């Protein structure tokens, strides 16, 4: 059976060019970059070149880029490291209700250390309101963290505007750009960003490597103490093949970003139009326009998400859901609840995320299967039975009205 992979916000396959660039650093140039002999120096040179490449892609200096084990570590480091190093200036942080758990749980950890955190609500599209952000800034606010684009609903936040407000008030600004880097154009100087997290495996690079950009002069406490790697800021022998692969993948992704955005946006909008036209009681989650070009997220009424995922998986279609049943917790996605979906609607959500290999035919096949799957599940649903017999109203219709 052919596999149709539509979960690229979850992870992506490593591109052959990336794998090829990484290969020499496993068994040939395997030296430790801290060693002085040639094998070590070749590895060290490769890390330096990768750092320069990645810095160039976001308009930063190489000395402002630190490698990490991934996006979550970069988020943790930015938030905890900044807060702990700057606690003398204040102990208040601002973030949004729809951040990735790497940000939300790092903030909760700081609350247990005595910091205070404001979690800004978002509107129905998932957007943070800049005026509300400004109003939340207090004299003791030291850091704000708002994601560049949301991983579930694809909403792109007004980062330039938020960062400008933060700067005007002397508040440092962090953005989790894990979903945006390599997809959206990012220039940290132009946007006024002080700290930025990114990850390799969301842009056809390897898992286990990410980066934190920290503007020169931004003070960060270390998370990992030990050797002098990353200029004494993060110990651990460098993941040389991963770092090389990250730079290669990012270079390719950024070079192709404009074309891929256009191509994927056309497929995305085709998918959204088809679902809205062909599937009753469906709701698009997230903004229709301020949206990542690879993200499609719908809620379908009267059904629960896991059954939908299992039936689609049986046809080779890989997608994800905001349903509680698939996350191992009892609550549906905090993002879907934050944009105002009632629990019963959030349970029936589906996310399709396109990648550079995704074709229009793939998406058409997935939607054909989805229609059948929803038909099966609704036929089995007591909620649908009640709706058809006029005993209850459609919540999605009420929300739309």
């Amino acid at each position, binding site marked *: 059976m052919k596999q149709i992979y539509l979960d690229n916000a979850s992870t992506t396959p490593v591109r052959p060019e990336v794998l090829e660039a990484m290969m020499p650093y496993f068994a040939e140039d395997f030296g430790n970059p801290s060693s002085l002999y040639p094998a070590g120096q070749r590895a060290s040179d490769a890390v330096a070149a990768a750092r320069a490449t990645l810095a160039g892609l976001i308009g930063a200096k190489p000395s402002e880029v630190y490698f990490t084990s991934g996006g979550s570590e970069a988020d943790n480091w930015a938030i905890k490291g900044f807060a702990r190093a700057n606690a003398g200036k204040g102990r208040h942080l601002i973030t949004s209700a729809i951040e990735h*758990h790497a940000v939300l749980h790092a903030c909760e950890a700081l609350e247990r250390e005595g910091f205070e955190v404001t979690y800004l609500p978002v509107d129905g599209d998932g957007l943070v309101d800049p005026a509300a952000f400004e109003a939340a800034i207090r004299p003791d606010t030291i850091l704000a963290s708002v994601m560049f684009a949301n991983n579930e609903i694809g909403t792109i936040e007004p980062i330039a505007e938020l960062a400008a407000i933060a700067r005007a008030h002397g508040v440092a600004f962090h953005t989790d750009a894990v979903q945006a880097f390599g997809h959206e154009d990012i220039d940290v100087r132009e946007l006024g960003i002080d700290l930025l997290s990114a990850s390799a495996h969301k842009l056809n690079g390897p898992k286990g490597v990410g980066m934190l950009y920290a503007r020169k002069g931004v003070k960060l406490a270390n998370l990992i103490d030990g050797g002098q790697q990353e200029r004494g800021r993060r110990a651990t022998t460098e993941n040389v093949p991963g770092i090389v692969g990250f730079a290669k993948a990012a270079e390719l992704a950024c070079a192709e970003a404009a074309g891929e955005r256009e191509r994927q946006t056309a497929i995305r909008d085709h998918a959204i139009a088809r679902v809205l036209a062909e599937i009753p009681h469906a709701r698009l989650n997230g903004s229709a326009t301020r949206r990542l070009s690879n993200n499609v997220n719908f809620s379908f009424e009267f059904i629960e998400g896991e059954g939908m995922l299992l039936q689609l998986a049986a046809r080779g279609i890989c997608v994800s859901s905001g349903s509680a049943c698939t996350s191992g917790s009892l609550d549906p996605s905090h993002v879907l609840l934050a944009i105002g979906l009632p629990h019963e609607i959030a349970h029936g959500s589906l996310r399709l995320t396109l990648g550079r290999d995704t074709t229009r035919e793939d998406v058409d096949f997935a939607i054909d299967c989805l229609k059948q799957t929803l038909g099966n599940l609704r036929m089995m649903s*007591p909620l649908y039975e009640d709706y058809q017999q006029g005993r209850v109203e459609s919540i999605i219709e009420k929300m739309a009205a």
Partner: protein
Amino acid sequence: MAMNYSEAVMDHFTNPRNVGEIEGASGCGTVGNAVCGDIMRIYLDIDDDSVIRDAKFKTFGCGAAIATSSMATELVKGKTVQQALEVTNKAVMEALDGLPPVKVHCSLLAEEAIHAALWDYAEKHNLVIEGLEKPVSDIGEHDHHHGVELVEDADDL
């Protein structure tokens, strides 16, 4: 992700038995709530000798919820009302070769759906079924969906 289902669960999820409604059912019970993500409705057709001639179900819920409903209706068919009371969540789970720990509540819901349908049958026919109590998660036939209270979830914030 809870995908480690047994073959029996996948079989009953993929090809559920007894999906549907019974017009003029002897008893019908609905349990669960949509906020939590599970609702089961079971219809029973019971003859004058207290034998369950037919059982049908409708379920809103995950793969395990659908599979346990399917298995529960299979297990009660042909049984007397008293025998049906012995179709416990354990019996349903065993018949499905087990459930992942986070899905055990689905089998409890299936047991309660059977009990709710039997309770409805007993009420309609002025009977007392020995050993049967009104299930706690019985939400009646029509009062769910909008009767449920929306709980603001602050856990993730």
